[in-house]
């Protein structure tokens, strides 16, 4: 029964539960802010790309490439320490929020753009032929379709990116993983790790179920 004592020590659970509940709040807040910002920025960039301005598109592509290829930890370090040696002090929370939003924006831009390019030309033409402007056609007709096509990969990305909030532990953001590894070290017990796992499940299992629902809800026959 050393297993139980190691991973489910009641005393340790009681000691660190309040901290961990608080950390869940931080993780949730961070994740929610990241999702909203990341997806909105990604959508905006994809739409901007539709305009077909060469220079703008070049920068969007470079942005998306770099954000997707770089490990976010490196971005976090540079933004957190590098910016403050340039005199700009961002809080740990803000840095994580900015970096993860940028990463999610890069991925979702690519997903939305992929979706947009797969919309049949006829949909654009139908919109334009009924006197809708380009922007109106994009906004009301093609983008909603692209977004729906993008839901499964987007859900994957959103889950993966929000779990990266765990990187907050590196720069002192008191999210779940940070608090649980502190607790692990303070207590000399592995139990806080179990608590972290459960905390993540409590947050993400409903998220996954919600995503299934969204997928079904917005699936339409074409």
């Amino acid at each position, binding site marked *: 029964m050393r297993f139980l004592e190691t991973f489910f020590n009641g005393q340790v659970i009681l000691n660190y539960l309040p901290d961990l509940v608080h950390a869940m709040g931080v993780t949730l807040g961070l994740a929610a802010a990241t999702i909203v910002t990341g997806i909105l920025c990604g959508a905006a960039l994809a739409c901007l790309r539709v305009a077909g301005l060469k220079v703008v598109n070049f920068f969007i592509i470079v942005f998306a490439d*770099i954000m997707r290829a770089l490990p976010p*930890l490196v971005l976090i*370090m540079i933004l957190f*320490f*590098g910016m403050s040696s340039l005199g700009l002090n961002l809080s740990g929370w803000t840095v994580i929020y900015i970096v993860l939003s940028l990463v999610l924006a890069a991925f979702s831009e690519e997903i939305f753009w992929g979706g947009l390019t797969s919309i049949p030309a006829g949909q654009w033409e139908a919109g334009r032929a009924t006197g809708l402007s380009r922007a109106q056609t994009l906004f009301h007709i093609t983008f909603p379709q692209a977004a729906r096509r993008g839901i499964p990969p987007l859900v994957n990305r959103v889950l993966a990116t929000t779990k990266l909030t765990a990187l907050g532990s590196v720069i002192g953001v008191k999210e779940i993983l940070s608090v649980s590894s502190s607790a692990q070290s303070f207590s000399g017990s592995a139990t806080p790790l179990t608590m972290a796992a459960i905390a993540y499940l409590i947050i993400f299992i409903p998220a996954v179920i919600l995503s299934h629902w969204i997928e079904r809800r917005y699936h339409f026959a074409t």
Partner: protein
Amino acid sequence: MDTFIQTFFNIDIMMQAFPLLMKGAVMTLKLCAVVILCGLTGGLMLALAALSPRRFLRWSAIGFIDLFRALPPLVLLVFVYSGLPFAGIRLAPFWAVVIAFFLNNSAYFAEVFRAGINAVPKGQTEAARATGLSGPQTLIHVVLPQAIRNVLPDLLSNTVEVVKLTSLASVVSLSELLYNANMARSVTYNSSPLVLAAGMYLVLLWPLVRVVSRYQRGLSSSH
């Protein structure tokens, strides 16, 4: 500005750290090779199970996928490495990483494959079955090639993520690229090794990322 360059772009320190980082990069590559292969295979199997007409199989697969997409890979890794010994299974660090990432990645890859297979018209399967191809033959020769083409960008995106994820392996003492960069950083009290590591990741991943975008452009022009 000067401190900024000193802390992040110190060429001398980068040169010193380079051999250590190269070692890490080799470990990262080794891990990736195994982990990606396992993830892809596992993901495919899971996707097939999740699309199976058999209820039990289908629901088990979906449950598996959802569970492991919800668990952070770090936690998973520690559990595999330190939890399994309680069940009498002691794994070498390398294999612990492989198993933990297999569980995590195959769940993600499964979702990608599932979307791809769903997008292949039913008529393709029917045409193949009508010409006497067996179920597995139909899958291998007709459905999968199309499914993979449908979701190639997502597959590659996911692969990029997996490469980045291997940096967790240091938890179980596998010194991969990022951990070695951190070690170098702790010796030199300077962040340049980290920037160098970032550069190496870029070299490793940029081609992959480019291929994704190129492929998407290809798709759009064929529409």
